[in-house]
């Protein structure tokens, strides 16, 4: 029953958010469905005449259909970029197969004797097609259409992966912020939408089947029911997109983690409350920096939160540098020169690898730093995920700087690490310094006193062109400089991931406390 309660609370709390996602979802699906129908049906008709083209077309769509959808979304990022356009293209590609195939099959399977009869009675080629061939193929075509509609609505749930919005965003956000009721609400909504569309088409199909006869009561009901549902979906298309009054807008993106959602909300709320610029939130972009950075360069995204270490090592591909301040200075300069991107501020916290152990143990043994842990390490079992042991910038390198001598070293699945600590299978683990479970499980984060791990200080990156276009943004993010400490970020993450508050609410409270929000 608590689950049911959670679901209702989630719906009530996030009504506007969910409604917006629903509208986006319908808009995206419906546009795709219309395009697919037009292309698919005309292609299906066109390939009737030529066997060669038929083989080429059906072979191609069959092949495309076998490519995993996630891969397909990713495949188009370099070509089209992220967002609505990409999602639309992928949905159209997937939807084509059932429509083309059923249109072709339906038309091809019409008894040639009937076509001969129509022609022999003096029907023009168009009359043969429109009065005899098309209506006889129609049930097969509709069943392909129905398959396509359900598939498209379901697949549109993945569109949020590349920042195209829709109900998938709720699911995706739920996964990334460990919020199972949000996942459920999103999933149920997608399923319901598909079901309703399927019912609508089914009812319409049934009523059309007996159109020739005078419509009886049940038939008429079915037809109005079907038309009603389709009309309702269509009205959504005509609804004005939310906001969009001043014409000024910027796109704020984030990676798919709870922390990034919170930072994204902080940035968005700050902009919304201090300017008349509309913020388009493209949160939780799959692939993180590898997809966001190129989109920043193309101008599809204007602002996003980034970590200095990621930018330095992954984007600039520079060798590790120990001093975080000189790293930041160099980073800021190189970003401006190479990419025309501005690091507006550092937020204050450092989300890097660290080592953690239960607070009572740490207190007992008086361990505050990596060095202090190294001295007593023979009393402890160390646990980390497989690749931490493998990487040069992981355990191997760490061991060269700090002479650890653990009682045992255990390789664990990354998701079971904290559980292992709770079960006392291990005593010390590696962790990210702002992981909310550190607080949940009352762990002490040790200080990397010889600065082995590179700094991953969070900051805000913004396009210089955006700053020039909207001068009112200048100086806005500098107000966030050094405003979030490690423990403050950990607290914010905790509120979202463990207490299940929405990132928007948590971000708003944070800004109010710092008098940054009116």
């Amino acid at each position: 029953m608590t689950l049911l309660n959670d679901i209702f609370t989630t719906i009530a709390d996030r009504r506007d958010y969910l409604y917006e996602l629903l509208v986006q979802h319908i808009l995206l699906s419906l546009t795709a469905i219309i395009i697919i129908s037009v292309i698919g049906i005309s292609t299906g008709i066109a390939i009737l005449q030529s066997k060669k083209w038929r083989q080429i077309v059906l072979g191609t769509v069959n092949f495309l259909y076998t490519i995993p959808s996630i891969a397909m979304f990713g495949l188009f990022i370099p070509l089209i970029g992220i967002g609505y356009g990409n999602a639309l293209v992928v949905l159209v590609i997937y939807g084509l197969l059932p429509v083309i195939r059923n249109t072709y099959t339906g038309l091809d399977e019409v008894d040639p004797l009937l076509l001969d009869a129509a022609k022999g009675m003096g029907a023009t080629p168009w009359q043969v097609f429109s009065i005899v061939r098309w209506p006889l193929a129609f049930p097969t075509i509709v069943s392909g259409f129905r398959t396509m509609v359900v598939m498209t609505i379901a697949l549109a749930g993945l569109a949020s992966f590349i920042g195209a919005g829709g109900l998938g965003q709720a699911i995706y956000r739920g996964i990334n912020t460990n919020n199972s009721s949000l996942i459920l609400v999103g999933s149920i909504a997608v399923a319901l939408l598909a079901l309703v569309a399927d019912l609508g088409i089914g009812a319409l199909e049934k009523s059309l089947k007996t159109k020739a006869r005078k419509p009886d009561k049940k038939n008429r009901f079915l037809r109005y029911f079907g038309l009603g549902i389709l009309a309702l979906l269509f009205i959504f298309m005509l609804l004005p997109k939310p906001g969009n009054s001043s014409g000024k807008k910027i796109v704020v993106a984030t990676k798919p983690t709870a922390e990034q959602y919170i930072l994204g909300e902080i940035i968005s709320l700050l902009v919304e409350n201090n300017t008349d610029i509309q913020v388009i939130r493209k949160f939780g972009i799959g692939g993180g920096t590898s997809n966001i950075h190129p989109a920043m360069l193309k101008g599809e995204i204007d602002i996003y939160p980034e970590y200095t270490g990621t930018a330095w090592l992954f984007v600039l591909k520079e060798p590790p540098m120990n001093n975080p301040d000189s790293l930041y200075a160099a980073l800021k300069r190189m970003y401006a020169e190479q990419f025309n991107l501005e690091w507006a501020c550092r937020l204050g916290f450092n989300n890097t690898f660290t080592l953690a152990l239960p607070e009572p143990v740490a207190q007992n043994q008086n361990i505050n730093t990596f060095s202090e842990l190294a001295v007593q390490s023979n009393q402890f079992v160390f646990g980390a995920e497989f690749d931490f042991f493998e990487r040069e910038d992981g355990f191997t390198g760490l061991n060269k700087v700090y002479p650890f001598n653990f009682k045992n070293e255990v390789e664990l699945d990354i998701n079971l690490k904290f559980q292992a600590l709770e079960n006392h299978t291990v005593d010390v683990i590696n962790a990210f310094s702002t992981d909310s479970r550190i607080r949940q499980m009352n762990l002490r984060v040790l200080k990397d006193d010889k600065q082995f791990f590179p700094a991953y200080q969070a900051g805000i990156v913004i396009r210089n062109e955006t700053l020039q276009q909207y001068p009112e943004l200048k100086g806005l993010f500098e107000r966030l400089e050094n405003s979030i400490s490690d423990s403050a970020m950990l607290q914010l993450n905790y509120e979202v991931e463990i207490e299940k508050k929405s990132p928007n609410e948590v971000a708003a409270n944070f800004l109010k406390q710092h008098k940054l929000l009116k």
Partner: protein
Amino acid sequence: MNNSVIEIVNVTKSYEPESKALINVSLDISQGAFVTIIGPSGCGKTTLLRLMNGMTGIDSGKIIVMDKDLENWDKIQLRRKIGYVIQQGGLFPHLTVRQNIAFVLRISSVEKQAIEKRVSELAKMMGFDERQLNAFPSELSGGQQQRVGVARALASRPEIVLMDEPFGALDNITRRNLQHEIKEMHRKMKITFIMVTHDLHEAFTLGTHVAIMNKGEIVQFDTPENIQHEPVNKWVKEFIHI
């Protein structure tokens, strides 16, 4: 013969270069005749029928239909003037009996009221009630379906009706009844009927003239009495006495 409505002169037709479907066929059909075409399967009788409304083209020769060379006819206009009944009726399963009968009128853009009037006439003539008119073909018996096919062919008051084994798939009793009906119809309406059949009895009882075909040629074309009394050769004699 006077008053010829279809005149076929020296027509040759082949689907593949090697095998000829029709060889040097000539046939003169006069107004109001009931011509039956009969012969072993593959003899070209269906091809011969399909030449007459331009459904099949010819390689050489000449065809004159209703005083006009077939080449000069707008094929679509011509077909609308010629009734066409094919095997198993060729009824459209997604249209009601009423809509099937009205098909030619509908595609010729005849006014709705005129269509309704004509359909009622035909329904009265064929004895269809309102319930049957609103039924789909699959809800009727085979014989009834075939009668719908005939009614459909008559809808535009054609001068000529072409029929390709219309009663082929029916049981014997239904078949005899329909043969009787169509003979009556022919007697009353003075329409030219041309019917392909593989049933000797049907060919000789219905036809005012019978064309006997073999291997792409018309072996004999005459009245049933003349053929029975004076078959042109041994093959015809054997064929009609099987």
